[in-house]
């Protein structure tokens, strides 16, 4: 039975088992669709796995950065930066290979968490190194060598960059508390200004983002982080002022407890 419209072939297939009466034109087409869906699902799985690897290793970089203190800055950041390069070379490169030549937006939900965490780690390193924001262009320039130069290279999109940046403030908050404990008040105030700036810039960008419900939640968390940083700065500031009032001759004292043992 080739077509439903022709009654002439009826007799010949009346006894054929029913399930293979499927019109062959449908069958061929659906075999194609089946192949397409299988490949897509398998690719999605591979992308999810690569994303999870990126996440777990980026988190390690972040923890490495948190090991910073006044006296080991160079050493700690060097290691963090090396680890970050390793994340890129080992895991992001795998993602790049999977996605190359496809519409990067199609599987975005599968890889977005990993990319966001990578952004968080990379911007965190950079801030600790230079006190500035690693911008997307620079970040993406670093990814270029991973791609086959013949085709459109994988680039982190603005949305994932901004979502990663939104998480950064949480880490900055932890960093600020630690820096205050370590007496690095200038550093803490730099963090304070930096995260205020990011928060302010993001408030202007959020309403423009494609699907900003995630981002709105993150903004709430972020404001909380900024407030925590500001309040921590306030409490050390107020104590410092009182110290000045009490007329200390050694204003550097409040800059930490290096002389705790002395």
């Amino acid at each position, binding site marked *: 039975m080739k077509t439903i419209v022709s009654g002439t072939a009826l007799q010949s297939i009346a006894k054929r088992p029913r399930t293979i009466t499927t*019109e062959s*034109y*449908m069958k061929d087409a659906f075999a194609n669709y*089946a192949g397409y869906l299988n490949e897509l699902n398998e690719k999605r799985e591979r992308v999810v796995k690569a994303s999870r690897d990126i996440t777990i290793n980026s988190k390690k970089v972040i923890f490495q950065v948190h090991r910073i203190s006044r006296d080991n800055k160079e050493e700690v950041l060097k290691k963090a930066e090396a680890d970050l390069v390793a994340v890129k070379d080992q895991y992001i490169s795998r993602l790049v290979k999977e996605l190359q030549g496809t519409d990067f937006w199609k599987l975005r939900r599968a890889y977005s968490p990993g990319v966001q965490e990578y952004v968080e780690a990379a911007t965190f390193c950079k801030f600790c190194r230079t006190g500035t*924001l690693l911008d*997307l262009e620079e970040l993406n320039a670093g990814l270029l060598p991973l791609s086959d130069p013949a085709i459109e290279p994988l680039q982190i999109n603005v949305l994932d960059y901004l979502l990663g940046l939104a998480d950064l403030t949480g880490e900055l908050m932890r960093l600020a508390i630690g820096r205050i404990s370590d007496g690095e008040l200038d550093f803490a105030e730099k963090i304070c200004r930096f995260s205020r700036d990011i928060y302010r810039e993001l408030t*202007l960008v959020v309403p*423009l983002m494609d699907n900003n419900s995630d981002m709105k939640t993150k903004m709430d968390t972020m404001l909380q982080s900024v407030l925590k940083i500001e309040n921590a700065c306030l409490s050390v500031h107020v104590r410092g002022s009182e110290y000045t009032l009490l007329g200390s001759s050694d204003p550097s004292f409040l800059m930490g407890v290096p002389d705790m043992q002395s």
Partner: protein
Amino acid sequence: TSMEKQFEDFRVKLDEAGSLRERIRAVVNEIESITRLMHASLLHVHQSRPLSEVLEKPKAQVDGLKELYGRLAEVLCECPGEYYRFHNDWRSETQTVVSLLAFMHWLETGKLLMHTEAEEKLGMNQAEFALDIEDYLIGLCFLSNEMPRYVVNQVLAGNYDCPRKVLRFLTDLHAAFRMLNLRNDFLRKKFDSLKYDLKRVEEVYYDMKIRHLANGDSAEDNGTQGQS
């Protein structure tokens, strides 16, 4: 500062994407308007109006649809590689479009509208602007959802052969769908509903058969309503 510069840059890019999206939505709204009209016309098939009358208006609107998809393609041309970024903004409407085109096609020819045929009708047969296969498949499920009601109303109008024909079509379509490996997603849910449609059509077919109301298969005809 460089931070401000970067964010200014983002705002520009996102604004661009936003206005792109707005233009897409404007087109999609028009698509939606047309499909609503087409759907309303096609529903007359349940009142058992002659097929030619039923199809007249919706067929006249296919060109309008094609033109709108052409405009959609133009908009998406401005952001190459970002087809799927905006996909959600027009996928549900496109699924409806597919289901309507497939219904009309089936009413006329008794055959399934193929993916490439749907693409052609909508001018989506381009490298950068193709019809997503899942959208096409979901559209086919919507098509099947209309069948039980169609069959009941055809019988009410005295067209007792209809159930057999529809049953044969849905049985084939069901068999074809079973070749797919789905995830637990929307498509799987719609496919489940296809099974129920098939079952309902079978029941009507039984009702005819029991009462010896259905004709034999001798006189075959194109289309689904003999005398249209």
